[in-house]
């Protein structure tokens, strides 16, 4: 490629200014929509997954024989309404299993939890709750509790407890007050509230009552045992694979968030499929646009091409003029398109907010996405130019000169 091809490509584009601008606008629009949509959907999906996982472990290990039991308030309620008559099961040799999980590559944090149903009482008010006994340092790595504290820190010892803001208001208590915990088996204990949390989830705010691991173990009558082990992984979407692997190694019931939220995951992947379809259609339309504009341009430039060939321009040179034009449309269009999509994202992020006023997504462009879009646009531009360029290269110079 030398100055000849560049000179001709640019000058021809300038000559057909209207056509050039129109197709450039087409490519720009197409790329802007693709980047905007992708960025929007990626961010929204990220936000949704973040919110779903904010109070959930990526992977939960439970005792082998136990029927699937999820830590949701409803199920504690169900367990309450229809007592099992069987005491809470602990995971056999949970220390070695926790150790195994810790050593598994891809697992970031491990938190043993002793949890089960109980009642919380203050004065005359009594509420059914879920005891969550854990080691704060470990648990914080699984659920980012520090982000949700409205009073005090997520830290406790001895007979201290941390409860949600809705339970606190139901019972009419606040930090410094004491509440009484009563379990099915009749064990009682008075705990001092040291902090309040708000998980942006009313049910959890009403039910979760954190204690030390040891406290819950004794209240739930599983001394030294844990009811489940919660894990966090590095790559969210590897959770299922890791869960299966651990399950095969231990024979325990191990579930990842991907199974617990399969409905959500399906919805997200449907959204991704739709987005991909839209992207493919836009690419095809833009490619056809470039091709048709260049086909017209080649016909218009028939005479010039003939003259150039008479002056010794090789077929390859003529071909490269038009391939270059295609590449220029793609590259320029995607650069302008990326800027445009950034503008759109900025606009959308200020107009559309989550119900709590926080931004649903940030006006951010993923550089990888922009580079990929530009590369794809350039390649598509060249491919779209292939047919017209070949036509130009194989045009008969004599015909152009005779006419």
């Amino acid at each position: 490629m030398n100055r000849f091809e560049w000179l001709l490509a640019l000058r021809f584009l300038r000559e057909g200014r209207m056509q050039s601008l129109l197709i450039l606008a087409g490519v720009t629009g197409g790329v802007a929509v693709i980047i905007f949509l992708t960025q929007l959907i990626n961010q929204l999906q990220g936000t949704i997954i973040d919110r779903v996982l904010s109070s959930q472990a990526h992977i939960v290990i439970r005792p082998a024989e136990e029927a699937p039991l999820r830590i949701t308030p409803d199920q504690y309620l169900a367990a309450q309404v229809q007592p099992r008559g069987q005491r809470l099961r602990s995971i056999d040799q949970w220390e070695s299993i926790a150790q195994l999980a810790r050593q598994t590559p891809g697992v970031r944090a491990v938190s043993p939890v002793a949890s089960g149903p109980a009642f919380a009482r203050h004065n005359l008010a009594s509420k059914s709750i879920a005891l969550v006994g854990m080691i704060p340092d470990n648990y914080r790595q699984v659920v980012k509790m520090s982000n949700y504290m409205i009073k005090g820190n997520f830290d406790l010892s001895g007979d201290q407890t941390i409860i949600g803001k809705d339970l606190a208001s139901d019972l009419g208590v606040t930090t410094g007050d004491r509440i009484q915990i009563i379990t099915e088996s009749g064990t009682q204990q008075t705990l001092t509230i040291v902090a309040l949390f708000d998980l942006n989830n009313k049910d959890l705010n009403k039910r979760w009552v954190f204690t030390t691991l040891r406290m819950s173990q004794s209240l739930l009558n599983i001394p030294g045992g844990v009811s489940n082990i919660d894990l966090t992984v590095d790559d969210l979407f590897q959770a299922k694979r890791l869960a299966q692997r651990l399950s095969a190694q231990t024979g325990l019931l191990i579930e990842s968030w991907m199974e617990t939220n399969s409905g959500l995951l399906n919805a997200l992947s449907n959204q991704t499929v739709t987005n991909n379809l839209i992207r493919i259609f836009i690419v095809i339309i833009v490619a056809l646009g470039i091709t048709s504009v260049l086909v017209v341009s080649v016909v218009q430039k028939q005479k010039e091409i003939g003259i150039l060939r008479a002056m010794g321009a090789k077929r390859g040179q003529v071909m490269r003029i038009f391939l270059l034009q295609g590449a220029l449309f793609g590259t320029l269009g995607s650069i302008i398109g990326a800027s445009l999509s950034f503008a759109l994202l900025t606009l959308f992020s200020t107009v559309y907010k989550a119900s709590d006023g926080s931004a649903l997504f940030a006006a951010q462009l993923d550089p990888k996405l922009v580079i990929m879009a530009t590369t794809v646009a350039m390649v598509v531009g060249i491919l779209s130019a292939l047919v017209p360029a070949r036509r130009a290269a194989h045009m008969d110079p004599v015909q152009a000169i005779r006419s």
Partner: protein
Amino acid sequence: MINILQLAHIYKSYGIGTGVETEVLHDINLTLARGSFHALTGPSGSGKSTLLNLIGLLESPTKGELIINGQNTNQLNDQELTQLRGQSLGFVFQFHHLLPAFNALENVMMPAFINNQYTQYQAVKRATDLLSAVGLADALHKKPAELSGGMQQRVAIARALMMSPPLVLADEPTGNLDTHSADEIFKLMRKINQEQDIAFLIVTHDPRLGERCDLTINLIDGYLR
């Protein structure tokens, strides 16, 4: 080697394989010496342009040998023919065929760009010299549309000389000009021929111009007379 061009038993037919095959040139034998100045005349439709396009390597003969600058063109592929055309031949057409998007200077430099031979500086210098030589020193940056027919043809001549080809082919270069301009253009070509020893083969309808050439080749119904 004293001949710039040698044609031996050249035939050209159109429409081969279509059932309406017409032979336009029949057994053409022709030799042009280096630095010669020939006119090619003949009635309309006699095959002058066809012959010139064959010599210009824009078309290939159906049969026969065509030797340019010592190169037998029969064995050359498209790429090599294009290369030979760019290096050894200059063209001047009746309808000047300048590139409208480029100014006079750029048009003249175009062959240098195509063949990627001169540096930008050299190309500008040479093109400027050539345009001055054809009397257009003041019109370097004018687009073809801003030039008169005669001026456009001067630009075309300058362009044909850019790569210093040993042979310039001109197809009715004055056909579109008034008598005065035609005379000027003809004189210019003659001057270049004499000063730079560049051979010219000029198709013309004008018998007066033919008389002023070294030799007039007459083509009638595809036969050389």
